[in-house]
């Protein structure tokens, strides 16, 4: 960020509970995590350790039950209701496990959705989407609907949708879990090439150890806590590439 911001996300003692009383479940039990700008950070850990919940809290889709959270320098406690929605629309890009593309829209139209949500003219938004799809190697498929695209192609359209409005933080939930190993490797290469910039951070939740090599740092989670953070030099190589 041009205001001297170093970190996209700063979590200090973040809590998240579901339910109440005897049925209360503590999913996040005091997470401390820093996600620097200009890097791709992976959040890894066993199923049920709270990765996706932490991602949802950071993205503003769930409210933290306690602790302190700053996203792009803005305390999450100041983002409520419409402000939170507007903050997400302007500053966050999303990549989902199942892509969640709208089946009735073409690739270009899907990629243009964040701009349309921001009130852009449809033609201008689609023109920009086509240019971005071209950059992602999908220019020829811009008019295809999702059911005519392979998994890898759909994920590239999802990348375009996450990037088109030039957000500062991109959150990805298991971006390769629906893809075969080769395709997963290729899309992560692509994501790293087009998404990581000095003023932007990419936060990826994954189980897939084969793509760990693309991370600048990995935060290991277990039982609702970040137990260790490994920098690039300490990251083990994936088993297939």
């Amino acid at each position, binding site marked *: 960020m041009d205001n001297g911001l170093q970190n996209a996300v700063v979590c200090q003692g973040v809590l998240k509970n579901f339910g109440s009383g005897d049925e209360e479940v503590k999913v996040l039990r005091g997470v401390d995590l820093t996600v620097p700008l200009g890097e791709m950070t992976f959040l890894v850990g066993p199923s049920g350790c709270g990765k996706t919940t932490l991602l949802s809290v950071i993205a503003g889709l769930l409210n933290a039950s306690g602790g302190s959270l700053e996203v792009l320098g803005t305390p999450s406690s100041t983002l409520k209701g419409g402000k939170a929605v507007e903050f997400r*629309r302007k500053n966050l890009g999303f990549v989902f496990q199942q892509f969640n593309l709208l089946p009735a829209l073409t690739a270009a139209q899907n990629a243009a959705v964040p701009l349309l949500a921001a009130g852009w003219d449809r033609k201008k938004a689609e023109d920009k989407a086509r240019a971005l799809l071209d950059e992602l190697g999908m220019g020829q498929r811009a008019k295809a609907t999702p059911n005519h695209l392979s998994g890898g192609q759909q994920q590239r359209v999802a990348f375009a949708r996450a990037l088109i409005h030039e957000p500062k933080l991109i959150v990805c*939930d298991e971006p390769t879990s629906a893809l075969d190993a080769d395709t997963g490797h290729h899309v992560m290469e692509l994501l790293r090439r087009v998404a990581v910039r000095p003023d932007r951070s990419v936060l990826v939740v994954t189980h897939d150890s084969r793509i760990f090599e693309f991370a600048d740092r990995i935060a290991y989670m277990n039982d609702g806590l970040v137990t260790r953070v490994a920098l690039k030099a300490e990251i083990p190589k994936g088993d297939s590439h």
Partner: protein
Amino acid sequence: MNFIAWQMLTGDRAKYLGLIFAIAFSTFLMSHQVSIFCGLMNRTASQIDDVRDASIWIMDPKTQYLDEVKALTDQDLFRIRGVPGIEWAVPLFKGTSRAKGPDGKFRGVILMGLDDATLVGLPQKVTLGSAKALAEPESIAVDRVGYKFFFPDEEPRLGRTLDLNDRTLRIVAIVDSSAPFVNLPVFYTRYSQAIQLVGRERNQMSFVLAKAAPGVSDAEVVKSIQERTGLQAQTASDFGWTTIFYYIKNTGIPINFGITVFIAFLVGSVVAGQTFYLFTVENLKQFGALKAIGVTDWRIVGMILMQAIIVGAIGYCLGIAMTATFFEATKDNLDLRGFRLLPQIMLGTAAAVFFIIFLASAASVRRVVVLEPAVVFRG
């Protein structure tokens, strides 16, 4: 975002067409059945509407509706004529008889006896012949239905004869009368001749038709007649409604039609509601993605309502077009005279369809509004 809503709606052709069909079918059934009901109710008062010269109907105080009357006396007519504010008052006979055609075919007919001097009560539109010819002895005017029944394969022409009560009457005019509730032919003749044809009772005068003098309102005259003669008097419009309400209150017609219309409404609501709800549920992940991306709840609600309004509007237009086509196709059928699609019915059906799509979209809107956008992170 409206474009996205449109694409989502039309992208699933089967559901889109299913929704439109449900609304169209419901619209057709509701508007068609209500039209038939209104037409039927209008028929009960059609012979009152056909009398355009007189604005006031006078009858026995206990008369409940047009088709069941107790005759007045000649003295009643004279007393009515003496009421201030009346320009003129004439007798009207309404009864039934049986007519026999040249080939022996017979049918019950409604016989109207019109004042000999003025012929007040004859329908305005005489399609063949002349009203004046009714002054001739043994003459009769018949409506188009009657002519078609007795002379089915013939072009209408004057001079044909029919037998009523062993008397042979010559057709001197063919008139375009409104369809009565019971779809019998309507014959018109002079009052004096009508009571000879069917008269068995001491008194024969079914009604007195009157007109208020210039500068005097119908309501004032009606009040004066009632006060001075003890007879019942109503304006033509009021008597028409009295007759309609009699049928509504004393027959099963409104209940039967009401059940059909209610079922149409219910089927439309349930089918459209269920299909629309399923459509929304199947797109829940997509709506969740839109919420995560930063589309507001209001915008998404707007998208859902827009989808509902589109299917509602298209379905309504198709349904109304089907009803209009039905009545257009049957407009020349004499047995279906008087049945038509009224603007009021179109408006009422539109309100019902609006309510249906409101119900159909309400559950969907609720489901999407309470949807946590974090659902998109659950594989």
